[in-house]
Every structure is written in C-alpha cells, then in structure tokens.
C-alpha cells in the first residue's frame, strides 16, 4: 500500500463528528452559564448591547439613542463625501496625466501569466508525484528544483509588478500567481524536510563506510542547525555512492 492509499484510508476517519445539536447546546451551556452569573457586573455599554429582557420603555430609549447616532453619523458622512468629490476630481486629473498605460504591454503580461499558470499546474502535479518516489535522493533533488523554480517565479512576478504600472485587474492576477508561487515554495520546502527525515532513517539502517558515516553525522548536524540544503547535499552524495 503506497502513502497515497494509506492517507486515503486515514482520512475516512474525518467522518467521525459530534452531533450538531450537542455542539450547539454545549456551547450555549458553557458560555451562557457564565453570562448569567456575571450579569450584575455588566457595565453601561455592555448592558446596552446585550440581549433585551427589559420593559418596552427601555427598548424605546435605546431606539432613540441609536437613531440619534445614525442621523449624526449621516450628517458627518455627507460632509465627508462633499469634500471627497472635490479631491477625487483632482486625483483623477493627476492620474491621467502621469499614468504610463500601454494596453499592448498589458496584453503581453496577461499572455505570460497564462503560460505561467499552466506551468504552475504542471509543477504542482510533479510535486505530488515526488511524494511517492522511492528513490529519496531523486526526491530530494527534485524538490529542491521545484523550490528554486518557485522562488525564481515569485521574483519574476515582483519585478513585473515593480517595473510596470498594471491595471487593477492585471495586478490582481499578478498577485494571485505570486501567492501560488509562494505556496508552492512552502509546499516543496515542507516535502523536502519530510524526505530528509526519511533519507536519514533509511541510511542509518544501511551499512556505510567510515567516510559515509562521517558525512551522515555531518548532515545530521546541519539538519539540526536548520541548514537543510547543506544536509541534503551530503545525503545525496552518500546515496549516489550506494
């Protein structure tokens, strides 16, 4: 049974859940019991915003307060809007004057983004396949390649964002792909750390030469110091000679 099949079986257990009625009642019991006991200590503002169990007059009083607040804020908001209309006109005029907008340039960026997106999908599939690779040396190297690719992709997007002044729509697409690269980098980093552990465990059970043992020890030191790249290089060297 490979890891994918095993994980599929494990995730069946996610179906075990409590009854929603019990969840709701328990929450109410835990939080409501406490609220009843604390009632006398509520401040004016807490009383104002907590559920009403008082005569209608009190509700009416609250209603008047709320209405006054709404009207007052409405007046202030209208005043604010008025000032904004003037300054917005000035802002738009400035933006039109200085914005370097080139629709051809944006078309190129969009086309490139589509290619990058397709490339990203393929890389994600490769990452999934690496998880099931039996050759740990290969898995480590390939995860490093993906990590570097994701890093380069992320930097490229940042460059594009910095050099051009893309429209809001293009900027949103650029940011989405940048985030995809970031996630890919994190996922490959995480996978690499898991594969390092598997590699260590595997090598400890093998018969190694003195030189290999010394490299393995050094690799472990690097791993414990968080220097995963250095650890990986040493492990791959040991595995190549096996």
């Amino acid at each position: 049974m490979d890891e994918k099949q095993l994980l599929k079986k494990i995730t069946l257990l996610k179906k075990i859940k409590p009854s929603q009625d019990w969840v709701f009642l328990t929450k109410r019991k835990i939080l409501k019991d406490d609220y009843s006991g604390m009632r006398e200590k509520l401040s004016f503002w807490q009383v104002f915003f907590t559920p009403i169990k008082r005569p209608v007059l009190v509700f009416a009083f609250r209603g008047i307060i709320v209405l006054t607040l709404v009207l007052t804020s409405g007046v202030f908001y209208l005043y604010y809007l008025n000032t904004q209309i003037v300054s917005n006109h000035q802002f738009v005029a400035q933006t039109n004057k200085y914005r370097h907008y080139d629709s051809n340039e944006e078309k190129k960026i969009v086309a490139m983004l589509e290619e990058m997106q397709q490339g990203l999908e393929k890389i994600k599939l490769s990452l999934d396949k690496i998880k099931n690779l039996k050759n740990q040396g290969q898995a480590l190297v390939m995860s490093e390649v993906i990590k570097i690719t994701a890093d380069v992709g992320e930097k490229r997007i940042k460059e594009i964002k910095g050099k051009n002044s893309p429209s809001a729509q293009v900027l949103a697409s650029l940011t989405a792909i940048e985030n995809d690269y970031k996630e890919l980098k994190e996922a490959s980093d995480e996978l690499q750390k898991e594969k390092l552990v598997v590699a260590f465990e595997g090598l400890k059970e093998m018969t190694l030469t003195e030189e290999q043992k010394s490299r393995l020890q050094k690799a472990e030191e690097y791993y414990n110091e968080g220097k995963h790249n250095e650890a990986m290089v040493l492990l791959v060297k040991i595995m190549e000679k096996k």
Partner: protein
Amino acid sequence: MFYLQKQFSKIYDKYVNKLYRFIFFKVNSREIAEDLTARVFSKGWEKYRENSKEIKNPGAYLYQIARREIADYYRQQSRFKTVSIEINQGVLNQITDPQSSIEEDLILQADIKLVLTALNQLRDDYQNLIIWRYLDESGIKEIAEIMEKPEGAVRVMLHRAIQELREKIESA
C-alpha cells in the same frame, strides 16, 4: 466580557469537532467523548476568561487540557485502551451516506473499523501525531507546540508513526 465570549465562541467553533474526534479515538465512546470534550472547553473558557493574553495558542492549550482529561479518565476507570474496537451503530450511521447502497456502506464501515483498530494499536504519541497531521491538518510547527518537542523530532516521529500504521493495516 462580551468581547471575550465572542472570541472564545470562535475558538470553540474552530476546535470542537477536532477535539471531539481526538477524544473519541481515545475513549471509543460517544457519550464519554461528549462529556470530556465539554469539560475541556469549560476549563478552557475558565482560563481564557481569567487571562486570555496568557494563552498564545488556544488550539495547543485545549489539546493539552484534553490529554490531561483523558489521562484522568483512564486513571479513574483503572483501565487500558482497548485494542479491539467495537464502534457502535450510532456512530457508523452518522458516517454513512444515506444515498449510498448497503454494499458501499458495509465496505466503508469495514474500512473505518480497520483503520481505527490499527490506529488504536499504535502508541499514544504516534496516534496523536497521525490525528493532528492527517485528520486535523495541523502544521508541523503547531504539532511541535502541542507536544512541546522540536519540529525535527516531530517529523521523525510522524514518519515512524505512518510506517507502523501501514504495517498494522497490511497485517490485519
């Protein structure tokens, strides 16, 4: 106080299913799992109310309470974990899809029993790791905080836990 209640309410919503499931795997009884889960949140709320700023990671804190409650439960009952699991029909009915056929239900229930039995045969910390990583989808960092161990050690243990679980399932 109202603000604290609101915050804790969100924490409750986020962790109630996960904690219930975690406790259920340890005690194998719906009623006891409900009782202990309620106690965990009750104690969690008590502490949160006193000083919410002290609790940096509510999830890790609640799991620590849960582990203590489970240990207390075992001490009081003076029993060990059962190796063979009899999952009651109530739980299985909850799991199965009313749209699926009887055959599909039986296969699903058999699979779940198999995995649950194998999981229960693992040592406690291996069991916990698998639950937190693959069912709760917690990150290694979060798990390391709950277990109070370094991340590297957690990764090694997780790898061994999965190997052992696989062996138990394959040999069943």
